[in-house]
């Protein structure tokens, strides 16, 4: 239940063993290298040629994956992969693969294929454009060069004309050019807004032709110069060229698919290999060099020190390790360390932001509350059973899940158990499924065995419970901040601020309890005095830093006004009732719809089953999301605001990168 203790590690080593030692650091995976201070002295400027070489390989690998992966049929789905179904390699095996693979050659070959594919595809699209154009010239009796370049005396223009202007344009041409022109109109439908026209004219009358055409807003289309033959000849030439190009494209694609099949797995493993190496050599930038030696600083959790020392044993002649506690002004990264039961809840702490080193870790403090709240928000035992079944299936099927995924699944599993309990107590199993269908009657005794209270009938009771949870949760938060101040020996803040608030709020609660008759009258008097004392202390404490009576007075009043926020905070817990009711009511509605639709003759039973299945799946998805988000919000907004602010930096040690393969110390294939 805490933030793990972190030590500072000074590592001095002879440069002859630097690669091996860095390899060990990466393998053990417990050191976060501290970046070299910008002003640190650097005797021998480091040359990192190896890094450049690796960068070259990585950029080739990126190209290859981008080019080949779309054509690769992955036998492992990406879901499976993210759940840990990756091939296992050791670094030695990967380095052997890297040695015998000539990435550059293969990449050059693929670059050539890619360039050729691009050229082929762009030519095909050009041909398609020309074919589209030639389609307009089906009835054109001359060769195309008349339009593209023209002869000495005759030339032409072609383009689209608004259909309404067609007659006017024709008349205009007839009037101006008469026998020195010839007009072709391609066939068009009645509803076409534009029509394709071609005009041939004597070259010296060009100005007139343009004049008339622009008057009737003809938009001219250039005919490409390489169209010379008659339209039908051009079309058949282009078609046969296109067939040839398509064949070439297909054959290249066939090769690419073949290559992808055999190469993608190799390239993926190399991608992880070189990325891991890159991380390792990048560290060299953070070291301080002298002629013969190299020095690093890094953070290491004290529990991992022994593992590292053991790993470095073979090099002990050439290295020197100095361990020390972090200095006051240094802020080490945060590594959470929790007992097994609250370990899954670390996910939630990380989501908010980890604590600064040395601060409290809220993980196990919030874990029980999250557990209960999720159950109350979802509150349906049937949904819980489905969740438990699905999670059990996944956790059994995928043995090598990444730790973060496994912890998240355990978190949801816990939440499902809580939901099962609360759902059973409130008698909600897929809404009121057992009560709304006669044939499920056998389940009713089981349901009634656990049944305690129906929130639909007695919402006020559950509301009371929800608000009580709120009061407990908030007071717990206040007590933690009180304890935290004591721990840091900040007694003034502990008693003047936190303690006073606790006294005042407890007093108000007692007062309210006494006034409403729930508690004996004596408590009422006690509560009154506690509230007054607490308020006075808060008032005085908040004003102490201010100069001048008015400033003191107003800051005190303002602080007391802050007590209204506690009212809002407590009321916020009413969502526990509302969301629980919502999922139960949605369940009831779905069952009712199912019942209604089963009255349809003949197919009613089928529709009814569909409605119930789809409806409950939908309801489950929406309500799980809602329950998660809202029980999380109660932690983040209401609870954390009392004592916790996050703001730490998560411990990120030097490790292997394993996007596609799992890199382990020893090979699994021995």
């Amino acid at each position, binding site marked *: 239940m805490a933030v793990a203790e972190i030590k500072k590690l000074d590592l001095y080593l002879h440069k002859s063993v630097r690669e091996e030692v860095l390899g060990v650091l990466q393998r053990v995976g417990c050191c976060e290298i501290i970046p070299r201070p910008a002003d640190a002295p650097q005797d021998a400027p480091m040359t990192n040629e190896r890094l450049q070489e690796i960068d070259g390989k990585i950029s080739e690998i990126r190209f290859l994956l981008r080019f080949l992966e779309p054509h690769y049929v992955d036998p492992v789905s990406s879901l499976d992969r993210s759940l840990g179904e990756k091939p296992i390699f050791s670094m030695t095996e990967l380095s052997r693969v890297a040695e015998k693979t000539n990435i550059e050659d293969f990449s050059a070959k693929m670059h050539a294929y890619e360039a050729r594919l691009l050229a082929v595809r762009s030519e095909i699209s050009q041909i398609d454009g020309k074919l589209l154009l030639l389609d307009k010239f089906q009835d054109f009796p001359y060769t195309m060069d008349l339009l593209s370049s023209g002869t000495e005396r005759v030339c032409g223009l072609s383009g689209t004309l608004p259909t309404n202007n067609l007659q006017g344009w024709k008349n205009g041409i007839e009037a101006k050019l008469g026998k020195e022109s010839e007009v072709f109109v391609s066939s068009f439908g009645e509803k076409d807004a534009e029509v394709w026209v071609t005009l041939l004219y004597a070259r010296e009358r060009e100005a007139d032709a343009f004049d008339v055409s622009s008057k009737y807003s003809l938009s001219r289309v250039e005919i490409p110069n390489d169209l010379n033959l008659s339209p039908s000849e051009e079309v058949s030439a282009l078609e046969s060229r296109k067939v040839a190009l398509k064949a070439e494209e297909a054959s290249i694609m066939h090769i690419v698919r073949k290559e992808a099949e055999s190469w993608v797995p190799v390239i993926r493993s190399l991608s992880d290999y070189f990325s891991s190496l890159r991380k390792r050599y990048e560290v060299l930038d953070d070291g301080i060099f002298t002629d013969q030696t190299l020095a690093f600083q890094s953070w290491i959790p004290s529990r991992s020190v022994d593992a590292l020392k053991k790993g470095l044993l073979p090099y002990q002649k050439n290295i020197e390790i100095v361990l020390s506690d972090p200095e006051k002004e240094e802020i080490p990264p945060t590594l959470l360390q929790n007992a097994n039961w609250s370990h899954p809840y670390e996910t939630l702490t990380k989501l908010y932001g980890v604590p600064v080193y040395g601060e409290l870790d809220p993980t196990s403090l919030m874990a029980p509350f999250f557990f209960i709240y999720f159950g109350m928000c979802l509150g349906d035992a049937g949904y819980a059973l489905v969740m438990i079944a699905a999670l059990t299936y996944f956790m059994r099927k995928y043995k090598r899940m990444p730790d973060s995924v496994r912890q998240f699944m355990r978190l949801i599993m816990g939440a499902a158990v809580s939901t099962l309990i609360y759902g059973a107590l409130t008698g909600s199993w897929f809404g009121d499924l057992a009560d709304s269908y006669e044939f499920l009657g056998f389940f009713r005794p089981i349901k009634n065995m656990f049944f305690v209270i129906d929130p639909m009938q007695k919402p006020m009771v559950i509301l009371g419970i929800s608000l009580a949870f709120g009061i407990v949760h908030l007071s717990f938060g206040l007590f933690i901040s009180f304890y935290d101040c004591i721990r840091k020996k900040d007694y003034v803040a502990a008693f003047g601020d936190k303690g006073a608030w606790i006294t005042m709020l407890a007093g108000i609660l007692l007062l309210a309890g006494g006034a409403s008759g729930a508690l004996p009258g004596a408590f009422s008097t006690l509560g009154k005095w506690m509230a007054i004392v607490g308020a006075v202390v808060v008032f005085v404490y908040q004003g102490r830093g201010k100069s001048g009576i008015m400033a003191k007075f107003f800051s005190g009043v303002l602080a007391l006004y802050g007590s209204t926020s506690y009212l809002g905070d407590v009321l916020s817990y009413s969502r526990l009732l*509302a969301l629980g009711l919502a999922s139960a009511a949605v369940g009831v509605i779905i069952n009712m719809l199912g019942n*209604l639709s089963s009255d349809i003759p003949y197919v009613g039973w089928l529709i009814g089953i569909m409605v119930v299945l789809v409806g409950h799946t939908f309801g489950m998805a*929406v309500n799980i999301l809602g329950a998660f988000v*809202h029980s999380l*919000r109660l932690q983040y*907004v209401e609870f954390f605001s009392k004592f916790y602010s996050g703001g730490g930096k998560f411990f990120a040690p030097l490790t292997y990168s394993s996007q596609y393969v799992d890199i382990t110390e020893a090979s699994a294939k021995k």
Partner: protein
Amino acid sequence: MEQYLGIMLAVLGAALAAGWAGAGSAIGVGIAGESGAGVMTEDPGKFGLVLLLQALPGTQGIYGLMTAFLVLLKVGLLGGTPLAVGIWQGLGIMFACLPVAIAQYFSAIAQGKTSAACIQMIAKRPEETGKAVILPAMVETYAVLALLTSIILLNSIKL
């Protein structure tokens, strides 16, 4: 006519709740969807995350539907004989639906805008999905509170 007015007021309440809440959710989900489509033109792989965020303003519609059903159940219009609802009881039921009708409509739109902004956020920082889900949920608080108010009010009207 008077014996029907009560029950019809209740029906009006149910209609307002489902109608306004549904309209709000439609707008909210729409706003988020527009933003999501923009992000997916860059990276179609974000479909799952975007869908999750787009779905968030959809809950208001469900709350509205739920309230409508609760009203119909209460006055016996669903699977049963309609109860006798007086004019004042009918008015009460209608008023009880107003928190849902109003708050769901506006909160769904506001939540849609927040979701849209959060979709933009995960476009740049997919690792912050957790936080991106929390921000729209802050808006939903008030939808939940309104739902709660309506349920309590409905519950307190005795037929």
